[in-house]
C-alpha cells in the first residue's frame, strides 16, 4: 500500500530530474541560467554550513509566527463562539481584513517593527492566523445540539462542557486550520525576508540571485521546500497522535489494511 501510493510521484520526480540533467548537458545551458540537478546538489553540499545557519533563522521566524497565530487564534475563535458581541464586533472585520493582501502591508510592518526577527514573525503571524480562527470556529460549532442538551441535563458547567466535549470535538477542524496555517507561515517568513533581511533563507536566495549563483539559489529553494514539508508533517504527526479516532485518519487505517 505504502509503496503503491509513493511510487508514482517518486518515479515522476526521478524522471524529471534525469530529463533535466540530460537537457542541461546536451543543450549546453549556461549554469547561471539553469544549473543541472547535480550542480544544485554539489552547491548544497559545499555550502551546507551557510544554508544550515539561514535555515535555522527562517525556522525560528516560522515557528514564532505560527505559535503566535495559535496563541491569538484559538482564544479569538472561542470568543467568537461564546460571545455574540465579540462575534458581531470582530468577525466581519476579520473576514474583511482578509481582502487586504498581507504582502502589501509587509513593508509597513518592517517600517514599524524595525529590522531583525520581529517583522518576519509578524508577517508569518498575520498571514497564518486567519485559517486557524475560521476552522476553530467551525469546529467548536460542530457539536451536535443533542450532545449539548445531554451535557446540560448532566448538570455540567460550561467550562466542563468545553473541555470534555466542545474542544475535543473541534480538534479535527482545528488541525485542518493548523496545517494550512503552518504552510502559510513559511510563506510569511520568506516574504518578510524578501523585503528586508540580512539573514534567513529568503535573504540567502536573494543574495545568490544577485551574484548569479543560481546553483545556490536552487539549493535554498530546495531547503525551503523541505522545511515547508517538515512543518506540515510535524503538525500532521501531532494530529495523528492526538486524535487517532478522527474519521480521516480512520479511513487511512482502513485503506492500509487492504
Amino acid at each position, binding site marked *: 500500500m505504502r509503496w503503491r501510493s509513493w511510487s508514482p510521484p517518486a518515479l515522476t520526480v526521478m524522471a524529471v530530474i534525469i530529463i533535466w540533467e540530460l537537457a542541461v548537458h546536451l543543450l549546453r545551458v549556461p549554469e547561471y541560467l539553469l544549473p543541472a540537478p547535480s550542480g544544485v546538489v554539489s552547491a548544497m553540499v559545499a555550502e551546507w554550513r551557510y544554508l544550515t545557519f539561514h535555515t535555522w533563522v527562517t525556522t525560528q521566524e516560522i515557528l514564532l509566527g505560527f505559535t503566535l497565530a495559535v496563541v491569538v487564534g484559538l482564544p479569538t475563535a472561542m470568543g467568537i463562539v461564546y460571545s455574540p458581541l465579540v462575534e458581531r464586533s470582530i468577525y466581519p472585520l476579520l473576514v474583511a481584513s482578509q481582502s487586504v493582501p498581507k504582502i502589501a502591508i509587509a513593508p509597513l510592518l518592517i517600517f514599524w517593527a524595525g529590522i531583525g526577527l520581529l517583522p518576519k514573525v509578524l508577517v508569518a503571524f498575520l498571514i497564518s492566523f486567519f485559517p486557524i480562527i475560521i476552522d476553530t470556529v467551525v469546529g467548536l460549532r460542530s457539536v*451536535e445540539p*443533542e*450532545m449539548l*442538551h*445531554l*451535557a*446540560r*441535563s*448532566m*448538570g*455540567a458547567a460550561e467550562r*466542563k*462542557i468545553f473541555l*470534555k*466535549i466542545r474542544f*475535543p*470535538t473541534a480538534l479535527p477542524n482545528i488541525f485542518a486550520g493548523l496545517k494550512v496555517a503552518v504552510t502559510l507561515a513559511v510563506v510569511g517568513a520568506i516574504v518578510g525576508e524578501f523585503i528586508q533581511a540580512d539573514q534567513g533563507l529568503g535573504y540567502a536566495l536573494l543574495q545568490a540571485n544577485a551574484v548569479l549563483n543560481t546553483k545556490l539559489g536552487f539549493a535554498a529553494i530546495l531547503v525551503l521546500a523541505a522545511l515547508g514539508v517538515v512543518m506540515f508533517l510535524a503538525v500532521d504527526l501531532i494530529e495523528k497522535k492526538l*486524535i487517532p*479516532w*478522527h*474519521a480521516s485518519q*480512520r479511513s487511512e487505517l482502513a485503506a492500509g489494511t487492504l
Partner: protein
Amino acid sequence: MLNGQKLVEVSELIRVFPTPEGEVRALDGVSFDVRAGEFLSIVGPSGCGKSTLTMLIAGLMRPTSGLVAVDGRTVDRPQTNLGIVFQNAVLLAWRTALDNVLLQVEMRGLDPRQYRDRAMELLHSVGLAGFERRLPHELSGGMRQRVAICRALIHDPPLLLMDEPFGALDALTRDQMTLDIQGICTRGGKTVLFITHSIIEAVFLSDRIVVMTPRPGRVDVIIEVDLPRPRRLAVREDPTFAAYARDIRDRFMVHGVLHDIDTPGQAPA
C-alpha cells in the same frame, strides 16, 4: 415516590416558535401527567411537537405558556434528575463505549471509578459484553444506541425520557431493542416517557399512550393498555393488541394523518 403518584405534570402547555414565515404553534394546550413507575408513550405524526415536549419536560426549553412540573417542582431550568435518549446516540467519537457511559458520571462531578462496575453491568445487560473498549465507529447503530441507553441509566435516575430512540434503526434491531427496553425498564422500576411515531412500539411498551393530533399538537386521547407483562413479541398478533393499535390508527385517520386506500375523496398520502 410511591408508584402511581404523579411524577411529571404537564398542564396547558403552549409553545410557539417564531419563524420567518410567521409563528408556528408546535404545542397548543397540552395537558397530561406521567405517574411514577409507569411507561407512558406519546405517539403522533411528525411535527406534532413530540420532541418539543421532551425539551420542555427536560427543562431545555421554556414554554410560551403553561406549566411543567417534575416531582412537584416547576421546571424552570435544565433538569438533572433524569436520563435522556435521543434518536441519534450522540456518543463522543474518541471515547470507548464504557467511557461514553461514564461521561454522565464525570459531567456530574462524581468519581467515575466508583461507577465503573455498574457501567460494565449495564453494558452487559444490554448485550454489549466484550464491546466495552470499542470506539463508537466500531459499533453498529443498534449497539451505539444501547450505549446511549446505558449512559442515560448509569446515575439511576427515576425518570427516563426517550425521544424516538429507535427512529434511526432497522426493523429487526428495533424489535430487539423494544424487548430490551421493556426488560430494563420493568426491572429498574423506572418511569419512562417514550416518544415515538410507531403505533406498534407504543402499544407494545406502554401502560398508557397519549395520542397527539397533527400540528398544532394537542392531546387527542389517552389510552390505557391493559396487556399482561412481560410482553412477548408474539403479543402483537393478539386480538386485544390489534384492537389497541386499530384504535390509535383510527384516531390518525380521523385527523387525516393516515388515509386508507378505500376512503373516497381523499388524496393518497
